[in-house]
């Protein structure tokens, strides 16, 4: 046969194996062996296929035919060792693993196997040495930890980390051997050691490192050795020693063992021994409860669980037990209630989650069911064996285990019982003395913020080129010129020896200071909302900044207009500059208060802002922009003097023109108005702030 063909056929086999068609591959390979065409590689491939089909003895049979001389690579010895181990040939396996070890002593899984094989052969000290070599590697596999603990015990050494799964008889035995050593019970210890040696060990229940062994011969072997153990204890002599040990956890495991062989009599015997214990803990009572439950004795089971809960309300398994009893009694709602409670104590209990998922599937609540399935998948992500077990559980009920993405499930969580980690526990902040408040620092901080806001407003509103400033002047200039032309056309001369331009400027400019401030306040928050992301910036600071800016702008524009009128030949003689500035400030303050009020009210009533436009028109004509109070007919004047803006403009003119006295305007009246409005505005701003920020 030429080489080319051999390669071809090997490739074909490897391809089949990749596709997991082991049976077909086996058939081809066996045919080749029968035809005497097989090479060494064929035997290796065949052994592998058979191993994957879980026919370990057959696999070992073919593999033995291959000559394993000294010059083989590591992998061959390792594979041979594994198959020999699986086929139960521990001696051969040991040799193979040792050879593999001599080829490569770095690979820990090989040493782990060597340790297990040593343990199986009763070479406990060698096994212990092997475990020492692999160090913390064993922690990946609970199984390895268990076997290490057994080896140490049987080698007569002390064990720190005992196996945790107390429901397996072997682990229970471990604990008891330790206890016997502590109490110097030699007789008991030797009996237990014999038991541990002769027991159907965990080692045989699971395949080492991962997968389960399910071949039929294995099961038979397992069953027979379990049987042997049961018989072992049926011997009265041994039993007498054993029963004096009074070890609740092993009574429980024995009980469950007997029960698995339908030896209910024996099971009950140990169950009652368990219950009769004097210093029985709530956990042991729960174990007894589980046994009663398994034996179908529901009433005693319920009593046991309730008793455990009386001893300690947080007993881990008691709620689950009760729910199982309720389930058996057909009370699904009660069962659900208790299982939810159980899940609040043990949130990651796969058994309970599987039960609750099944319950929701049967109740037709697909959303809640999917949420539980997701949790199950998450919990057993790393372990294909456990996933398979869960799948089997669901298939038992005729349901396929098929998790799909869902939202997290918080529906049964008892929020009040969630523990808060120490670092998040509330600790009362240390109160600082009130006098430590640094007012100067606070003032500096606020003035920094307001300065920044003013600068931001200037650049934002007036633009980079300064056209905005120009517009502020032009706007008023246009108004003043239009009305000046109008008055000039009518040819009416003004009383009190006042020049026309000065008269119009004091009216129009004053009105615009009020008007512009109001407008600025109305949009202050909406335009600056993103600035409120800074804790330092408060709505009040924004209002203040805009108001200050508006005051300065108004003052500057007013001065410019007055200067312009002087250039045009008008004479200006003021009574009081202070009064002029003060009135302008009052106009600004009044406008600000009014604007804030409107802004806040229109958050709640959006139609209010168009209503406000109407008010603005009315104010334009009733605020004395184009007439004096002194020259109005008394009855009209009495009505118009109610308008605070009219009062302010009158006062401005009184300050501005040395020849004019505002006989009817009242400073107090204006002050009350401004203060009242400001108070109202700040109150409304405060109460509506939350709504303003949300909108």
């Amino acid at each position, binding site marked *: 046969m030429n080489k080319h063909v051999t390669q071809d056929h090997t490739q074909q086999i490897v391809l089949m194996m990749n596709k997991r068609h082991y049976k077909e591959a086996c058939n081809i390979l066996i045919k080749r062996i029968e035809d005497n065409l097989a090479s060494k590689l064929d035997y290796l491939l065949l052994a592998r296929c058979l191993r994957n089909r879980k026919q370990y003895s057959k696999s070992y049979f073919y593999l033995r035919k291959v000559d394993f001389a000294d010059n083989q690579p590591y992998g061959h010895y390792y594979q041979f060792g594994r198959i020999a181990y699986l086929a139960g040939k521990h001696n051969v396996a040991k040799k193979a693993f040792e050879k593999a070890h001599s080829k490569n002593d770095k690979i820990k899984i090989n040493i782990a196997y060597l340790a297990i094989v040593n343990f199986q052969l009763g070479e406990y000290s060698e096994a212990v040495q092997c475990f020492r070599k692999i160090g913390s590697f064993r922690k990946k596999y609970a199984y390895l930890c268990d076997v290490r603990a057994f080896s140490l015990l049987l080698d007569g050494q002390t064990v720190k980390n005992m196996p945790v799964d107390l429901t397996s008889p072997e682990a229970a035995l471990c604990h008891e051997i330790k206890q016997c050593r502590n109490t110097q019970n030699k007789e008991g210890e030797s009996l237990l050691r014999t038991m541990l040696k002769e027991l159907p060990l965990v080692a045989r229940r699971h395949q080492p490192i991962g997968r389960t062994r399910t071949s039929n011969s294995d099961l038979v072997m397992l069953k027979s050795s379990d049987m042997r153990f049961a018989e072992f204890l049926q011997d009265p002599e041994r039993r007498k020693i054993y029963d004096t040990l009074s070890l609740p956890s092993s009574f429980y495991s024995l009980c469950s063992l007997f029960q698995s062989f339908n030896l209910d009599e024996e099971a009950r015997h140990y169950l009652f021994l368990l219950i009769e214990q004097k210093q029985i803990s709530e956990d042991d009572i729960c174990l007894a409860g589980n046994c009663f439950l398994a034996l179908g004795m529901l009433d005693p089971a319920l009593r046991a669980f309730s008793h455990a809960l009386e001893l300690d309300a947080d007993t881990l398994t008691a709620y689950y037990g009760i729910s199982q009893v309720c389930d058996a009694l057909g009370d699904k709602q009660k069962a659900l209630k208790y299982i939810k409670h159980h899940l*609040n104590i*043990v*949130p*990651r209990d796969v058994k309970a989650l599987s039960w609750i998922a099944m319950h929701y599937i049967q109740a037709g609540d697909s959303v809640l069911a999917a*949420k539980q399935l*997701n*949790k199950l998948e*998450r*919990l057993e992500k790393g372990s294909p064996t456990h996933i398979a077990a869960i799948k089997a559980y669901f298939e038992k009920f005729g349901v396929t285990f098929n998790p799909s993405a869902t*939202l*997290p*499930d*918080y*529906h049964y*969580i008892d*929020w009040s019982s*969630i523990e*808060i*980690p*120490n*670092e*998040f*526990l*509330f*600790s*009362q*902040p240390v109160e600082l003395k009130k006098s430590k408040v640094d007012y100067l620092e606070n003032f*500096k*901080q606020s003035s*920094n*913020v307001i*300065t*920044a*806001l003013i*600068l*931001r407003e200037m*650049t*934002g509103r007036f633009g980079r080129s300064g056209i905005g400033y120009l517009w502020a002047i032009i706007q008023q200039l246009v108004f003043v010129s239009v009305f000046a032309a109008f008055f000039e056309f009518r040819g009416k001369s003004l009383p009190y020896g006042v020049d026309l331009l000065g008269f119009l400027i004091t009216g129009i400019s004053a009105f615009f200071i009020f008007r512009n401030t109001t407008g600025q306040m109305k949009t202050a928050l909406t*335009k*600056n909302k*993103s*600035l*409120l*992301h*800074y*804790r*330092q*910036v408060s709505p009040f600071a924004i209002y203040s900044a805009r108001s200050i800016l508006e005051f300065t702008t108004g003052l500057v524009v007013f001065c410019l207009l007055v200067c312009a009128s002087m250039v045009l030949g008008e004479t200006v003689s003021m009574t009081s500059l202070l009064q002029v500035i003060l009135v302008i400030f009052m106009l600004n303050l009044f406008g600000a208060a009014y604007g804030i009020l409107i802004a806040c009210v229109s958050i709640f009533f959006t139609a209010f802002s168009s209503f406000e436009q109407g008010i603005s028109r009315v104010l334009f004509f009733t605020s004395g922009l184009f007439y004096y109070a002194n020259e109005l007919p008394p009855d009209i004047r009495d009505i118009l003097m109610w308008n605070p803006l009219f009062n302010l403009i009158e006062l401005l003119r009184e300050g501005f023109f040395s020849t004019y006295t505002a006989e009817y305007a009242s400073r107090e009246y204006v002050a009350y108005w401004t203060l009242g409005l400001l108070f109202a505005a700040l109150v409304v701003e405060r109460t509506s*702030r*939350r709504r303003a*920020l*949300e909108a």
Partner: protein
Amino acid sequence: MIHLKNVAKTYNTKSGERTVLLPTTLSIPSHEHIAILGRNGAGKSTLLRMISGVEKPDQGVIERKTRLSWPIGFGGALLNTLTGRQNVEFTARIHSVDPDKTFDFVQDFSELGAYLEEPVKSYSAGMKAKLAFGLSLSIDFDCYLIDEAISTGDRWFREKAANAFDERRQQSGVLFVSHNPALVKRFCDKALVLADGHLVPFSDIDEAIDFYTYGLLG
């Protein structure tokens, strides 16, 4: 430490009242890296705004014993009408730091160059994030409040930001709001999960992620 004493918050929406946070009493260590996990709309950002002091809770008191940043997010704190430079200067001023130095740092970090003289409204979302992130790094805080800002920008900037941020969090604490468990795991060691109005603290980030994605405790 940030102390939350009996803090609660609800929102009024058209469909009725929505609870963001039920009365909660907690202390949040401000020198550690803590994530706030929650679904979209659970109220994470509101919580962060309350912690930062921008928004007031309905009841209860929040005490801040550290220098906290503003909630750094998708350029939320930037003013669209201002240029990049003006925004930087504004932020520097309200935090009482030198505007020019801050601007130099941001210019260097954000790589926006001449764009910094353009109004922010002409920026793309990525550019805004660059500016916002550079701005936040330019000022020293004890604790940074971050609202998923790190995930924006192009790949190179993202790496740069993550590195700069890694460096910064050696000295400073972080409160990192996100709905993305993978991102959270990269930056945080502890977490708070906001679910159904409950704020549940975890000292282990994996536990928190399990609780957030599956509702699994323990």
